[in-house]
């Protein structure tokens, strides 16, 4: 098994772990954001593997932009989470029923 094949298997396994983590930790908003980071990490690993396999630099450029967007997303997501905590006093997902009639 070459390193490229092993990396594809590894990234798919990390993606599965991230999805399972979103199901397991569906109460905690912060751990949900961390699981999203795991998913992005596996996708980036996939891009880098194919960029190495085909000797193209475009996949690495994609990883660069994904990192940029993910950093912005995390910053805004955590800011929203802080506002949520200051207004509601909790970040439990099951208590977010303010729109329920």
């Amino acid at each position, binding site marked *: 098994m070459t*390193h490229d094949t092993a990396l594809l298997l590894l990234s798919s396994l990390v993606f599965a772990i991230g999805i399972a983590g979103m199901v397991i930790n569906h109460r905690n908003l912060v751990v949900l954001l*961390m699981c999203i980071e795991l998913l992005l990490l596996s996708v980036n690993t996939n891009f880098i593997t194919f960029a190495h396999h085909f000797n193209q630099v475009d996949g690495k450029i994609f990883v660069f932009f994904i990192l940029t967007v993910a950093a912005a997303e995390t910053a805004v997501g*955590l800011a929203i989470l802080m506002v949520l905590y200051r207004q509601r006093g909790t970040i439990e997902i099951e208590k977010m029923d303010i729109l329920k009639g």
Partner: protein
Amino acid sequence: MLFPVADIIFYAFALLLIASAFMVILSRHPVQSALYLVLAFFASAGLWIMTQAEFLGLILILVYVGAVMTLFLFVVMTVPMETLPPHQAYFRSFVLGFFVLLLFVFLMGRLLLHYADVTIPSLTLSSSVGDTQAIGQVLYTIYLYPFELGALLLLLAIVAAISLNAKIDRRKIINDINAQINTQASDRLKIIRMQSEKKIQESSPHDT
């Protein structure tokens, strides 16, 4: 054949990545999850560097471990979490998550078995330029416009995060439009009668 040092390092990083990813989703406390996520990023950066993506591996460590995970730890330590959910509910979601994991592994295994005999030939042209130089050569020419958009996006994220969390009294910013329209001159201006002041005869030399 020499002792396969590169293979051993590669699989050590891979095992470290899998183990720390499992610990991210299985830790009971979010601080432990964040620290294991840092470990997962380090292992992944090692794998990327071994796959000839040195620049992105270093960027992963600098940006993610240095900035994003610090932000995560800040939030985790600021916001008090519920430490332990009720054990019954936790067990139920754990079983559900395990089934989701099995489903994904099953689907990807089917896919891999289906394409087991297909091998895409790799293009191992040994490029003379390094990874950093190759990225820089296309990033500032072909991808210049997306690069500028990325910079703008980061600026927007800064503005959004700060304006969401700045401690401003929002009642001082929001205009009450009805009050502005219905205001009268007497609300803003007060005319009083008073005696006119007498003129000061001699002024001190310091006054100009």
